[in-house]
């Protein structure tokens, strides 16, 4: 019984980590960088949903839609302002671009945090859950409706994104750009638009995770950093490669974390993610499912 409850919590947490990790993987595949500002996109989603629902008094569904739009818009704006000038800088080579872009995302991380602190301050806020009935009983097991919603939304989103990359024209141009940027430019793909779309999509993933997580954790300008590390851990486990890999990585991470915390040491839950990151990157940098890549000179 207890194991079943822990499992349900672990899986739903893991889905959140997977969603956050998914956004990281999208940007990583496009530009080859870890996006340090991703935790703040998560925070932006949570704050947008809170603003829509509590401050503006929108119905819950509309406030979630509002959060998705705001998060996506922030992702695109951020890419246009801070990332585009570097990635389109002709005099820099690709490797040096990446270092500069990482530094820019680090800067964005604290700028966005500061911007959230001005209107909303440092106080801790609470977004009500999506459904009035907080738990339902399935076969004698009480499950939180919010957590079921998280799992359902994550699964739908992962399938949708997989289909997006496999079927749609934009998804295909994104894959082409990540495979070979020069080739993509030669056949007439506007790589700038592709990067904007990638950042927008990544921000939507982060924002959805944020607004789903907001009723379970508190809404606060600093909420993103911890989630960023957990998302990174999920992405590392999944190997930074595939959409489904990162989801599996996230769920594994969520389950392992909750059991570790329950049966070993509760306070160590906070550093579970960094430990996973270090172990995976040191001993199996290709992730659990990936294969080792050859070094190109």
């Amino acid at each position, binding site marked *: 019984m207890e194991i079943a409850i822990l499992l349900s919590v672990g899986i739903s947490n893991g889905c959140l980590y997977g969603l956050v990790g998914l956004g990281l993987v999208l940007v990583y595949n496009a530009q*080859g*960088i*870890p996006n340090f500002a991703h935790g703040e996109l998560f925070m932006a989603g949570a704050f947008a949903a809170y603003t829509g629902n509590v401050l503006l008094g929108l119905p819950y569904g509309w406030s979630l839609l509002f959060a998705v739009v705001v998060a996506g818009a922030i992702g695109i704006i951020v890419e246009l302002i*801070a990332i585009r*000038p*570097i990635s389109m800088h002709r*005099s*820099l*080579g690709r490797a*040096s*671009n*990446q*270092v*500069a872009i*990482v*530094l*820019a995302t*680090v*800067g*964005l*991380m*604290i*700028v*966005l*945090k*500061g*911007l959230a*602190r*001005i209107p909303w301050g*440092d106080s801790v806020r609470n977004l009500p859950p999506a459904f009035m009935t907080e738990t339902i009983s399935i076969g004698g097991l009480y499950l939180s409706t919010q957590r079921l919603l998280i799992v359902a939304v994550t699964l739908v989103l992962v399938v949708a994104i997989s289909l997006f990359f496999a079927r749609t024209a934009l998804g295909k141009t994104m894959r082409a750009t990540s495979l070979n940027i020069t080739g993509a430019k030669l056949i007439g793909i506007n790589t700038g638009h592709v990067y904007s779309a990638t950042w927008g999509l990544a921000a939507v993933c982060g924002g959805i995770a944020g607004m789903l997580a907001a009723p379970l954790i508190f809404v606060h300008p600093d909420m993103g*950093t911890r989630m960023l*590390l957990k998302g*990174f851990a999920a992405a*590392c486990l999944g190997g930074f490669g595939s959409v489904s890999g990162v989801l599996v990585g996230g769920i594994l991470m969520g389950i392992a974390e909750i059991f570790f915390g329950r049966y070993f040491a509760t*306070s*160590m839950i*906070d*550093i579970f*993610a*960094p*430990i996973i*990151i*270090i172990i995976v*990157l*040191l001993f199996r*940098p290709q992730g659990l499912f990936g294969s080792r890549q050859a070094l190109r*000179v």
Partner: protein
Amino acid sequence: MHFLRNNVFLLIFAALLVLSFFADAYTQYLINLMLTYIVIAQGLNLILGFAGMFAFAHGAFMGIGAYTSALLVTKLNVPFLIAMPTAGIAAALVGCAIGIPAIRVSGLYLAMVTVGFSEILQWVLKHWKSLTGGPDGVIVPAPVFFGIEFRSDFHTFAIILVVTILMTLLAQGIIRSRLGRAFVAIRDSEIAAQCNGVNVARTKVFAFTISAFYAGIGGSLFSLTQHYINPENFNLYQTILQFCMVIVGGAASLVGLFIGAAILTWLPELLRNAQALQEIGYGLLLIVFVIFLPRGLAGFLIDKGILPREQYSPARFGWFSARRRAPEKATRS
């Protein structure tokens, strides 16, 4: 004249010494803090600017130094003059221990591993209450030399100035040595460095160790200026602040550090009561400099001919694109 042009920092130290005779306590405190950050930023500059490695754990190394020296002084009554080098060595040992596995990880993944390490250290400092006092922190007593208590900020300044000068000279020595050239070679091209007989793995571990040593000494000085330390002093912000110093001043430049440390010590003090504005300020500085002035203020001043060209400072396109470095003449005379 040539000597002075090539050792501008000596002039800066002399100016600070003169200034401190007229400064009030608050200005003196800021000068102390700035010198402390110069020591720390020199360590970060060695690993980030010269060796080109993306180590994000400098706040943590600084924390190890600060806590080692503070705990040695408060719990074991060790004199500060012994506690400070011990703090540097402790940080260097941890840096070496982190560096040996971390160099397996290439490029930008290193940033993640080191961020993970600094989160873990943060957690240890908060939870090992019997040793570190947890979130309450440690109160650092004034050091005593030969029976005299060094209580005022001016007294602290004397210690910090001497240490900063020694550490600056050491950094210059390292950069001009074989090891410093090996750092630059690895930054410019790891494979080319390997082909030319540089032991890449060993050099990288050296970079980690030396920069952690600087951070440890700096952390010890930091505990001296603040008189009180807690884990929050050494979190990710601290690391980002130091990154800002190196990037704003100019990576791979010795003079740049002075500019960067000066700006980023004064700026937070101006915005002392507004954490939001501080964060926006740092972040925007970092973004603007990365986009428009990737070589920092020192690079800008060197291009304008105001400052002399430094050895190993990357040419035109900035430190990111070290491969496009133009050949340059050594300016030592």
